[in-house]
């Protein structure tokens, strides 16, 4: 009985294998390289509050924006079989809006909430723009979002009239680093909150099934009363919210908005996280947890490379090699070839005998 249960677990979650293997490899590699890599200590920051420190924490903390974006990206990928390459630009727009509203008066908690809502609204509008192009006009997501990818950061620039304004505020600082008295970095808490929100969304609605149905067979979805246009649009709007949250985290970390560098190149990592998470980039079934693990694996790789004193500009090249190894292992053609080889080895003798007879 136990054996059966185990086998169905792996059958159901086989797609999580790649990100888990990736993380496991990184863990083992780091254990051999430097066991102290995993040490987590409590230090006190410049305000004297106790905070957690260590490579593990910086992986979890640093991956926050990526994890949140990859959650949204998973949904868009599942429903429309394509990827949104404008997430970084959209996060920059949202961040600019956030700062713009904050700059409009003295920063009070009320204003921060207003700023957050404003940037969510803006991100949702742009998400809906992308979504409309994809769902109504039937344009491939990568092409549709190329528009915002090209012009998004300039729009962000334009919102603040060309400046890179800074914000000095304790609350904003707390969003980007630590809430006094809590040792865990705030971005990790925000990721947890987003994760819980998505979990609740899928627990208390049938949205997951709707999205997968639309992604697998749009025609069947329509004939079973699901509105594919609406569902696709919704996934883009949800991704918009994810962009807004990541943008706010990114802005709060630095205390300023830099439209050029905020979450630059993150769209590629987010798509990668979805792919490493075992989700089909052609849409259909998805597991958000896979993308989340994929995002952490990417960040773990980056931090490991940093720890090995690889310059930050060179990290890309090593990342590329790891990505290629992972996708080659995961490629169905390679899997089939390996299966065939294993079968041959196992049944080699008997097959020969049959042929001679």
């Amino acid at each position, binding site marked *: 009985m136990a054996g059966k249960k185990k086998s169905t677990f792996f*059958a159901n979650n086989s797609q999580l294998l790649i990100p888990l293997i990736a993380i496991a490899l990184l863990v083992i590699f780091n254990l051999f390289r430097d066991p102290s890599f995993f040490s987590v200590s409590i230090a006190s920051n410049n305000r004297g509050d106790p905070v957690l420190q260590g490579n593990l924490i910086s992986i979890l903390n640093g991956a926050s924006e990526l994890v949140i974006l990859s959650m949204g990206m998973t949904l868009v990928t599942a429903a429309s079989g394509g990827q949104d390459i404008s997430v970084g630009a959209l996060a920059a727009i949202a961040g600019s809006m956030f700062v713009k509203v904050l700059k409009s008066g003295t920063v009070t908690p009320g204003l921060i909430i207003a700023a957050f809502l404003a940037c969510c609204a803006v991100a949702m509008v742009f998400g809906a723009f992308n979504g409309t192009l994809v769902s109504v006009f039937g344009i491939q997501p990568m092409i549709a979002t190329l528009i915002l990818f090209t012009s998004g950061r300039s729009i962000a620039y334009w919102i603040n009239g060309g400046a890179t304004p800074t914000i000095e505020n304790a609350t904003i600082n707390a969003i980007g680093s630590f809430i006094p008295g809590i040792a865990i970095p705030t971005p990790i808490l925000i990721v947890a909150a987003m994760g819980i929100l998505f979990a609740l969304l899928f627990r208390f609605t049938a949205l997951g099934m709707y999205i997968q149905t639309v992604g697998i067979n749009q025609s069947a979805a*329509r004939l079973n009363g699901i509105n594919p246009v609406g569902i696709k649009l919704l996934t883009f709007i949800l991704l918009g919210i994810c962009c807004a949250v990541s943008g706010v985290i990114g802005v709060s970390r630095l205390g300023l908005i830099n439209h050029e560098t905020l979450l630059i190149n993150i769209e590629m990592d987010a798509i990668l996280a979805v792919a490493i998470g075992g989700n089909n980039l052609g849409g259909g079934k998805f597991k958000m947890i896979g993308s989340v693990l994929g995002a952490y694996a990417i960040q773990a790789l980056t931090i490991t490379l940093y720890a090995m004193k690889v310059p930050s500009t060179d990290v890309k090249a090593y990342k590329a090699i790891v990505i290629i190894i992972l996708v080659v292992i995961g490629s169905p053609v390679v899997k089939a070839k390996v299966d065939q080889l294993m079968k041959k080895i196992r049944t080699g003798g008997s097959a020969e005998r049959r042929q001679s007879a």
Partner: protein
Amino acid sequence: MQDDIVLTMRRICKYFPGVRALNDVDFTLRKGTIHALMGENGAGKSTLIKVLTGVYLMDEGEIRIDGIEGPVTIRSPQEAQSYGISTVYQEITLCPNLTVAENMFIGRGEKKSVDWKAMEKRAGELLESLGIPARPKQQLGSCSLAVQQMVAIARAVDTECKVLILDEPTSSLDDKEVAMLFRLMRDLRDRGVGIIFVTHFLEQVYEVSDTITVLRNGELVGEYAIKDLPQVKLVEKMIGKDLADLEHIEKHATADTAAEPLYEVKNLSSSESRPFDFHIAKGEVNGFTGLLGSGRSESVRAIFGADPVTGGSVKMSGKSVKITKPLDAMKNGIGYLPEDRKRDGIVAELSVRDNIILALQVVSGVTHPISRAKAEAFADEYIKALDIKTASSDTPIGSLSGGNQQKVILARWLLTHPQYLILDEPTRGIDVGTKTEIQKLVLKLAEEGMSITFISSEIEEMLRTCSRLIVMRDRNIVGELTGADLTQDRVMHTIAGGGN
């Protein structure tokens, strides 16, 4: 090997996981003959064709081709082509973005450069000599499906093939085009080409074929000269002993059609169908019949709102309702099992369980998810009730056999407890046993008070289950048959246009 034999297949076997698609099948094709390959859906016709064209690699057996020493292994369509085997498939396998001429010449010959002038001239001559209404420079996608099909045949003809396989070539052609195709086939036969003709139209087989090979359940039944096998015998060979089983199905007393109809519509039209009137009583089983393309599917799609509805006034149990999209229909207790199971029905990668609860989930709304436990219970109930053969309710529906997939879709609609269920070709592409089960189920449901509209291209099936047949031709309703008029002759007559 005899001199006039162009192709021999011996003891061909092909296995798929859990299925023996072909079991020791022999097949022989002679030069200058048209050889019909017959069998019910699932008999193994298309598997045999795919083995011959290199789409599937056979597991056992041997293939010999005239003029080539020893048995051959066909690994790809290109290789088949190089042996002189050309195929025209039911679904068009041409590139819609290229021109007609290119589609006829791409992938052939050794020349590296493309001589457009010569190619278009040659294509033009060929099209003209075969009487195909297409222009060489035309983009293929702008031709009708029938013309695209003929372009594919023209291509095959031009490759000087020894074996020409026509897989259901007539299913999208009208009478005139069929006649044109047959003229072409006879012409090719007289030039010495061996033609394998796969079709489900019996009359057409008798019109052009010389020889018939019948397959059933992946096994060879036999090879017959056309004159030795009357139509009735052929049907018997194809259907086999299961025919007897079907005889036991008995239609129940006709429902009270005089009562107020459950569903009634006046002047219903959609983007794909012309306006028509229709009604169905509680517990009635009726059917739309007519040839492929007669508008029978489009009509029921309009009832369900599957295509954009453009007009009509609908009443359910006497009350006016608005049905313009599938969700409206579902909320009014209408279910619809689509004609193309693969394209419109199954959600291949989702589990059997999710596929079963899909419609009920949508009817109850996105904010009321069906709990896992409930879903399990529903799935188990229907897997048992309909005898769906699946490893578990977690298995993706895509890995089930056609018949079992169809049962899952049926379960999906039964779970919503519809008042009115539309079944468009529920028995297509599934094994005979399941066909019988589905027909029995239809009658049982009707007895329990469900109204059912049933469409099948097999008229016998409709006669067995329906108490009223609506006959369509050229996208219009041309007749309605009930009671004593429900005979095969009368239906055929009406379809053919001599009914009134």
